[in-house]
């Protein structure tokens, strides 16, 4: 069965600090996709990244970076030099890429991030 665990329910940091959001996943498939979504107070889901299970290279996009460690089944997300606009709920998610099954996305419970001015 698929499962995504985001152990941090809520995090508060002061602006300009770095912050890492943890994500641990479980799946029996060897091929899968991992995602991060941002949900601002307005409620929409903003896509941040999708990572294929075969691609363990870390990724950096501006102030955002992702650390994919297959050995520990983790896909952590770091925001460098945080800004107030980063305040949101962040969801880690997993989808199994199995031709015989549907590719529904399983979400973690989310981490609410507060960036304090």
């Amino acid at each position, binding site marked *: 069965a698929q499962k995504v665990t985001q152990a941090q329910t809520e995090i508060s940091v002061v602006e300009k600090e770095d912050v890492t959001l943890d994500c641990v996943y479980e799946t029996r498939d060897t091929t899968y996709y991992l995602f991060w979504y941002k949900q601002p107070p307005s409620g929409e889901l903003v896509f941040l990244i999708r990572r294929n299970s075969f691609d363990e290279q870390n990724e950096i996009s501006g102030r955002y970076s992702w650390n994919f460690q297959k050995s520990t089944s983790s896909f952590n997300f770091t925001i460098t030099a945080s800004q107030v606009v980063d305040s949101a709920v962040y969801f880690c*998610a997993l989808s199994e890429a199995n031709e015989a099954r549907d590719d*529904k996305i*399983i979400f973690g419970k989310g981490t609410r991030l507060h960036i304090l001015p």
Partner: protein
Amino acid sequence: EPEVTQTPSHQVTQMGQEVILHCVPISNHLYFYWYRQILGQKVEFLVSFYNNEISEKSEIFDDQFSVERPDGSNFTLKIRSTKLEDSAMYFCASSARQSTNYGYTFGSGTRLTVV
């Protein structure tokens, strides 16, 4: 960039009433989904739809729920007799190909309030 469009953005309905949520998926996508997010909780899969039929549904998707693609462009979620606990944000999504998540796109959601 192509979008998944959901209407209305907010719907208020009385308990026991039927409600239909509307979605226009991206035009060349073949796979369609509905998800639900109760306030303050995680996003949960409801149902997936391909080739004019349901391909998978969750335990949440009971007999009160149905989906339809009536005209080749719209994808609707109907709740037959709403309950208070159906109050949630409902997200529609579409994707181009199964098992690759190619172009998997969410709409901006419909907030359903049952009173």
